[in-house]
């Protein structure tokens, strides 16, 4: 193995800004807990946070709470608590960590999380969402609204799909009016969607810059700093400004030829969520090889903006429906995802595909062996498949992962040398 690559001393503002924005959001939630302002629990995948925002209902994202607890090494006791209550070791650990939290009195990562006023299940692809929010509504005694988004099973959503979703929006809006005591104001929603579109533009432009070599940031490990603002805070002026700032920073880095590592040796596409309990050590396994993610599927669970879709304030509800139906990773088939990854490999000029297979998340992972077949056998893209979990630290086997990753990059390095 050649001399080790190091992470570059990071000098930008994006990480810090993102942290500040997300902290401000958690503080708002804590305040809502005290003042009794309405809150709504909602899922990340292809979400419709803009609708909650139009009523000033504070969005709670149980997935974010779960991942923050995992990063802080606090997920295992919560998972065990849920398992004691009857959840299986084979259930998605995100759900267990969240339910475990409520079974332990509702403490969030360092802050008390409010009990939601409404539990809004945006059922976008993931069937576990349905169960999760059924259980959450029961555990918290909050009202449950099941927003059923038909899965994208035809190239375009059908007219019936769109009608059905918009109809449900109208029904949801009546409920939100009652909860918030506010009348629905379509102009306010348009304004929110304007901010959303601006953030989407910034996120897309940032990703576009990763086509450059070196990529200015790691679109898997660093993208997490942008996923908070794009998925949780989308529709706020602050999130829109954040992305303007991000683009500026990344453009500056491209101009200087700077990337996240001291050297970019391999460009990879990463598929699957990260192992939050071991985020840093997992990242290091790639950094040592100078491997940078130039694109990732995980960064598109909330929305795929890099291929051009933006919320349209002139068609507010229809455009939210379209986003939920088509413009996110989760509501599309796994084979459609192969097409998304293929574009990344080709347009972002990647050397390899790394599939991080997550035991918890069958939505992502069930069938990734077929994905590997497709990329290695049909497209000839070097592909590595490794397994662990996004929330449960018990499934992270560092030595085994390291061996697999080292062997893969050694072979890739050899191939490069031979080709040169």
């Amino acid at each position, binding site marked *: 193995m050649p001399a080790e690559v190091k992470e570059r001393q990071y000098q930008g503002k994006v990480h810090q800004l993102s942290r500040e924005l997300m902290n401000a959001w958690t503080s708002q939630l804590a305040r809502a807990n005290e003042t009794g302002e309405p809150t709504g629990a909602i899922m990340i995948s292809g979400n419709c946070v803009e609708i909650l925002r139009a009523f000033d209902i504070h969005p709670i994202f149980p997935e974010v709470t779960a991942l923050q607890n995992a990063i802080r090494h606090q997920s295992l006791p919560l998972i065990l608590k849920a398992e004691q209550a*009857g959840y*299986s070791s084979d259930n998605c650990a995100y759900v267990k960590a969240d339910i475990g939290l409520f079974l332990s009195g509702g403490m969030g990562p360092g802050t008390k999380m409010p009990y939601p006023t409404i539990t809004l299940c945006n059922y976008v692809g993931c069937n576990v969402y349905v169960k999760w929010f059924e259980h959450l509504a029961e555990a918290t005694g909050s009202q449950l609204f099941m927003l*059923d988004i038909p899965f994208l099973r035809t190239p375009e959503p059908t007219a019936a799909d769109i009608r059905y979703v918009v109809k449900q929006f109208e029904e949801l809006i009546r409920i939100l009016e009652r909860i918030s005591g506010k009348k629905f104001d379509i102009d306010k929603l348009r304004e929110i969607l304007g901010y959303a579109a601006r953030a989407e533009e910034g996120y897309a432009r940032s990703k576009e810059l990763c086509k450059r070599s070196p990529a200015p940031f790691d679109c898997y490990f660093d993208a997490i700093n942008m996923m908070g603002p794009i998925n949780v805070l989308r529709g706020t002026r602050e999130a829109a400004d954040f992305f303007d700032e991000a683009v500026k920073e990344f453009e500056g880095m491209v101009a200087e030829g700077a990337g996240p590592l001291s050297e970019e040796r391999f460009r990879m596409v990463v598929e699957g969520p990260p192992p939050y309990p071991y985020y840093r050590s997992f990242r290091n396994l790639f950094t040592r090889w100078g491997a940078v993610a130039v694109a990732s599927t995980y960064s598109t669970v909330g929305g795929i903006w890099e291929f051009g879709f933006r919320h349209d304030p002139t068609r507010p509800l229809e455009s939210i429906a379209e986003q939920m139906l088509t413009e996110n990773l989760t509501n599309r088939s*796994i*084979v459609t995802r192969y097409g998304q990854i293929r574009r990344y490999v080709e347009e972002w000029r990647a050397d390899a595909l790394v599939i991080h297979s997550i035991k918890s998340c069958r939505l992502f992972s069930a069938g990734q062996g077929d994905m590997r077949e497709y990329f290695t056998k049909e497209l000839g893209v070097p592909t590595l498949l490794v397994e662990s979990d996004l929330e449960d630290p018990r499934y992270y086997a560092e030595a085994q992962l390291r061996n697999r990753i080292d062997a893969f990059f050694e072979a890739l390095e050899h191939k490069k040398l031979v080709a040169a």
Partner: protein
Amino acid sequence: MAVDQTIDRCRELIAEPLGVIAERWKESHPGGRVAACFPVWSPAELIHAGGMLPLGLLGGGATVELTHADARFQSFVCSISKSTLELGFQGLLKGVDGLVFSNICDVARNLSSIYKRNFPHFHVDYLHLPQNSTSAGVADYTAEELRRVARGFESAFGVKITEDSIGKSVELYNAIRARLRALYAFRIAEPQKLSTVELYLILRALTQADPEESLIRLDELLAELPGREGRPKDRIRVVIEGAFCEQPPLGLLEVLEEAGCYVVEDDLLLGWRWFTSDVPVNADPFRALGQSYVDRAVPSSTRHEGREHRSKGLIEKVRRSRADAVIFTPPKFCEPALFDYVPMKQGLEREAIPHLLVEFEEKMWTFERTRNEVETFVESMLFD
């Protein structure tokens, strides 16, 4: 045909590969098409209305060795998804033309598109069944979805699915479901005369046979069963819950009974007896089916029911069948079953209904541990 003979015939039928059944049917129906449905609910009526044969696509059980599919689906994924894919790789579905999957879970969802990629000659459709049970738009949406599926069959196979023909198919399947309800009621009344293994064989054979033929057999069975011998045994009455998708091995059902249980209710092959009363035959059969999917539905782990607690339907089943306990039988790795276990178990505990958890896999072949667990459970109840 005597009951025992019919049941033996059922046992033989379900041992045959689906493709063999499809080919045989085609010999007597030249130009006919066959569509197989993955659990749980599928629109058998639509398939039948197009002159096609609807079959159940229920995995490979313990008989199919995985040679390709386990490289596609990881170790933490349920067995039925792998063995179902394997059927394709081993050519055991030759003769089947169409496959229908629906949004029961994330695994079935991925399996559907992976099937299509690996075997493009199948017409594969994925049905999005509604999870919102109360929206004013849900029946129209479901009707449109069923129309879409019907149009898909029409353009893939050149068949015609008219409102008229669906009406007739709905009547046929209403009749079959009424017979199944009668069989279930019979087992509740006299479980010593119809074991669960036998009822399951009948039910499963129905998913592998011509429905007109099945109806005749069901009527014969219902006429002959009351005269059957059977002395009541000292057993507890149980409901089993959880095996609505991956199929339990016959050995498991046998062991439950041998260890001292009368299974008096279950959720086996739920999709084939989904509607709790007849689907109305009216001017718009698509809408009638769609509305019924929501309003005449058995409680199921694969459909969100916003109007009542998940345990309610189970508790009703326990009361209706005068059961003493519930045995949960989720397949290993099956998220819908494993998630629902928690609220259902809590509901049972509130009602002081005893329960036991027994996980299984379709490929399981030794049952001694299960036997011991169930025997201990039964003893604790009998001598309580």
